[in-house]
């Protein structure tokens, strides 16, 4: 116990360490602002659009429309995100398709979010009672109009809590982009650690920064969910 204590004190809380901690903060936060946050936001928005399209395809009554969507979702969910990133960044150049690290990351993360979020959207649509479809039909609506005017607005409310979880996971997953050379938050930590050998300090510091971001996001999530409760159907 005392050994552990003294190790922690000597490595984390010594004056030198504290200086290193402070001086690393700026590059890491910069990495976060320049890459982690934009990557998260862009991939999430593109992913959501992809997810909506995929979900529509999956609930289509036409078989040949459903099949590509089913394959896409299955392939993305059945393979590791890291492998997907490597295929885009290290694999595609073999076909003479060379994409820079950041756009590679955007492509891989968008595809990934698209598949997972499409399942959330589809489940939300299926959770809306059949009576809502029927009520739409009986006032003369077609299937498409009912979907757009009656079902999707309600499904959106249902899907916001699970989608915000996807969003928070995405923030953390973007650290994988460090492995395809995107100089985001965690890559910065790795670079400094490689120079100073202060692995524990820097990785804990990176962890703290992710924690702060996710904590703030979860606060926002709570506010949104409380707002939505007010409109929920009885």
């Amino acid at each position: 116990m005392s050994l552990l204590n003294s190790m922690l004190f000597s490595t984390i809380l010594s004056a030198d360490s504290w200086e290193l901690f402070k001086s690393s903060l700026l590059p890491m936060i910069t990495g976060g602002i320049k890459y982690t946050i934009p990557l998260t936001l862009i991939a999430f928005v593109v992913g959501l659009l992809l997810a909506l399209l995929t979900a529509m395809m999956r609930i289509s009554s036409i078989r040949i429309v459903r099949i590509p969507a089913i394959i896409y979702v299955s392939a993305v969910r059945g393979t590791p995100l890291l492998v997907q990133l490597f295929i885009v960044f290290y694999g595609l150049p073999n076909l003479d398709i060379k994409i820079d690290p950041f756009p590679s990351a955007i492509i891989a993360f968008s595809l990934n979010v698209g598949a997972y979020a499409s399942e959330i959207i589809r489940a939300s649509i299926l959770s809306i009672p059949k009576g809502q479809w029927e009520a739409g039909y009986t006032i003369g609506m077609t299937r498409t109009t009912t979907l757009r005017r009656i079902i999707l607005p309600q499904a959106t409310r249902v899907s916001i809590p699970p989608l915000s979880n996807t969003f928070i996971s995405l923030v953390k997953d973007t650290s994988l982009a460090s492995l395809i050379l995107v100089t985001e938050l965690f890559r910065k930590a790795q670079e400094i650690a490689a120079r100073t050998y202060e692995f524990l300090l820097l990785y804990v510091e990176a962890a703290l920064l992710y924690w702060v971001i996710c904590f703030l996001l979860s606060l926002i999530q709570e506010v949104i969910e409380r707002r939505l409760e007010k409109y929920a159907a009885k």
Partner: protein
Amino acid sequence: MYLTIKGLAKSFGENEVLKNIDFAIDKGKVISIIGPSGSGKTTLLRCLNTLEQPSKGLFTFEDGLTLDFSKKVNKQDLLKLRRKSGMVFQSYNLFPHKTALENVTEGPLIVQRRNKKEVTKLAKELLTKVGLKDKMDLYPNQLSGGQQQRVGIARALAIQPELMLFDEPTSALDPELIGEVLRVIKDLVNEGWTMIIVTHEIQFAAQVSDEVLFMDGGYIVEQGSPDKVIRNPQEPRTKQFLDRILNPGEY
């Protein structure tokens, strides 16, 4: 006759729940459908509104629209059939994300693409008529069951259907709220709407109907004026059903 139905049948898989149904309804008339649970009353209404597609049957409307369900019917005709009637559900099925007023304007505004000002005026009149003048801006979950069902009726009326269909409109309501909904339906009878009402309110059916259909096991067992079917039933199954429903304590 406004609508004539011949040989209507409907199966769910092996289970034939409507068997060779014939009936007709004239403009401005009211038909009530009574019968035990599972006899096919809801299914019959839903066939009139394309919520279920009949397996067989010939529908002929006085304006010439004809659907023969023993052949393949085209989508356009189905949509035309659907748009002839308004439906009131047992469980209201109001749109929870829209106010009472928006529930009523949705059909005329979005489906019929009518002028917004005109539609709002119509919706306000309808909500006033069903006694909800001061509840127009509330959401369904802020309304009682009876109030929700009256919004449901206004929503169905707003598309100005030729035929109004009611599926046990008061069955989900607390006893003290039933009256307010029946009163609204009675007003519609007096205004001359053509209506088909599935109900367990036998006294009400006897009062407002021109004709009563008693269904059992997927058949129309007995049909005729309320004086005949309700006050003086001929078929033993009708008698037994009415006995049970009018004197519930004895069973």
